[in-house]
């Protein structure tokens, strides 16, 4: 249906199937196909079945989802291999969240004037296109898939955390964070209590504004405040270091910038520079030493829904005959694939298969529960050996670790390497 590697996102009104927009992919799907995709979903609904995804004979994958009984989003991927079902489902949810973030839920849930809505939806294209292009995939941003905030662990957070807390308070807010090279380095307690998707979404918004010195964006929070907009103020302290606060009507952007930014952040500018330099090398502090045979990893704190992804630039102390590392982009891709593999097959507790929306899905959910009940155990570890690397997944009550290692690591030793790596990161950093 579509060239491989591409995903197209369609948006229609749920009740009448009027197309509102179509993004992604150079070649648009013909109108008749869009109509059929909508039709087959409606037909299912008429029969009391919820069609949520399928694969076509020609290896395309399609996922549907209706939001607020108002808008239908459909994602169509070129080749099944390139986009997992998890990816498409996340895409639908993320795209909806982008739309709520920009326009608010009221605008989307009560469609009064279709032409007007079409015009307004254009304002979401920047974020949606970034999602479709998977902006930042080469830097290993995975929040769109994991729904955990992409973080980096600064080596000396103390003074910066204090500064952030007082800066945020001075801006009449409790919600503040510091992004370094696009990753969350610090946040106030309240910021961590936003829904994980919101944290990811706000980071994505800030990262899409890379050139600006400061900004004031109205944002609706898809979970926390879908109908009342807050203001997201961002300040580029150094190129690549952005402080953000989420606030109400005051302070004005101008006042916050002229009265607060210099006062709070100038005294710690050296600490910010150190943090930035560290971020250029790694998302982990220098005190964490990884084994040379670690090619990439993703560690997730399951409670706080924070994630740190690591892709070493070069190997540490290596035996001389070891081949060089493959490109970071390639390893990030493998890491995403392994994450998807592990959470959809083994660590499924995080991943309810059904979408709890309308009545038909209750059946699907029950089926899934029955299926899970059939399992007498919950897998806590899994591994996979490929031509490129070896992969090991590890789950503890607090953490998940997804590890890619060099092929030279004996398969029987993977578990030890993984456990060792998990401790090497979590013990010194308290992550």
């Amino acid at each position, binding site marked *: 249906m579509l060239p491989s590697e591409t995903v197209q996102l369609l948006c229609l009104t749920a009740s009448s199937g009027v197309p509102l927009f179509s993004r992604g992919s150079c070649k648009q799907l013909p109108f008749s196909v869009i109509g059929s995709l909508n039709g087959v979903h409606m037909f299912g609904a008429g029969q009391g079945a919820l069609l949520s995804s399928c694969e076509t004979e020609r290896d395309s994958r399609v996922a549907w989802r209706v939001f607020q009984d108002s808008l239908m989003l459909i994602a169509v991927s070129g080749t099944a291999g390139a986009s997992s079902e998890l990816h498409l489902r996340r895409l639908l949810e993320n795209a909806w969240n982008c739309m709520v973030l*920009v326009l608010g839920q009221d605008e989307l849930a009560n469609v009064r004037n279709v032409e007007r809505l079409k015009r307004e939806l254009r*304002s979401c294209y*920047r974020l949606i296109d970034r999602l479709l292009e998977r902006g930042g995939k080469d830097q290993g941003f995975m929040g769109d898939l994991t729904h955990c905030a992409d973080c980096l662990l600064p080596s000396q957070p103390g003074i910066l955390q204090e500064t952030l807390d007082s800066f945020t308070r001075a801006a009449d807010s409790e919600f503040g964070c510091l992004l370094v090279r696009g990753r969350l380095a610090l946040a106030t307690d309240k910021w961590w209590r936003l829904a994980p998707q919101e944290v990811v979404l706000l980071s994505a918004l800030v990262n899409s504004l890379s*050139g600006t*010195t*400061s900004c004031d*964006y109205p944002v609706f929070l898809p979970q926390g405040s879908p109908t009342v907009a807050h203001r997201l103020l961002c300040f580029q*302290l150094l190129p690549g270091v952005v402080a953000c606060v989420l606030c109400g009507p005051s302070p004005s*952007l101008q006042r916050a910038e002229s009265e607060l930014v210099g006062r709070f952040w100038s005294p710690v500018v050296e600490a910010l520079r150190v943090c930035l330099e560290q971020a250029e090398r790694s998302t982990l502090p220098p005190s964490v030493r990884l084994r040379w045979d670690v090619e990439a990893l993703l560690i997730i704190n399951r409670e706080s829904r924070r994630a740190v992804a690591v892709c070493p630039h070069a190997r540490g102390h290596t035996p001389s005959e070891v081949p060089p590392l493959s490109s970071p982009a390639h390893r990030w891709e493998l890491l995403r694939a392994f994450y998807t593999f592990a959470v959809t097959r083994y660590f499924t507790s995080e991943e309810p298969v059904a979408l709890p929306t309308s009545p038909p899905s209750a059946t699907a959910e029950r089926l899934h529960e029955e299926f899970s009940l059939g399992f007498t155990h919950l897998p806590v570890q899994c591994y996979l050996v490929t031509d490129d690397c070896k992969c090991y997944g590890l789950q503890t009550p607090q953490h998940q670790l997804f590890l890619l290692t060099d092929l030279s690591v004996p398969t029987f030793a993977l578990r030890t390497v993984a456990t060792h790596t998990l401790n090497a990161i979590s013990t010194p950093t308290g992550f």
Partner: protein
Amino acid sequence: MPTVPPGSIFVTDWHRSPESREYFNKILYKKKRRKFGLLEAPVMPPNLKADTVRYKVFISGKSGVGKTALAARLTGLEIPNVHYETTGMETSVVFWPVKLRESGRVLFFHFQLWDCGENVMCRFDHMLPSCEEQADAILLLFSFTDHGSFEDISNQMPRLTDPSDRVVRLVVGTKFDLFMHTDVTESEITAFQEVWGVPVFRVGGDVSSGMGEIAPLLNALAENLWHQDCAHASNSLSPPS
């Protein structure tokens, strides 16, 4: 306030002169424009001391006219080639060195450009006042490919030429590179300039790394702002800010 002719206060085309190189090097990094965070500014060696003067510049115009593109052009960022609506208010900073003709003094102008998407501005009330609050200059944008946007500005001019307020207003025509599709004629521009005594700047096309494309607009902005401050200072006997 009538605009001052180019070169009457500052050395004309100073960016071309070799003695300006040390100053312009401070706003470059690896042959591209350097990006400054809020905690940064160009730092000159003590023998080349230059004061910095700060101004707020509001970029105004219809959606799609090229406000975000102009801000990117002036700051040396990549110019977007598709139109993504700006869904909030954004500021960006331009440092620009100039040399005063009479005293030979060098100044760094620090322009803070305010860009707000037109559609979001209509949906949220606080944005326009925020952009206009204490603005020292307004760039009024129209697009050469959209006659309506030019008419809008012509219609606004009577309201805008209030001599008592302290705001520099310059008119900028965008997308001048798309001359094949131009919708606004040279004679209309000439007539406009004569009637309102306001120069019209033309921008468009790729920006090479040189300063040539942006210098006329930035110099005019700086010169008029400086002139406005001096005139005000001599009226009120307080030094220019």
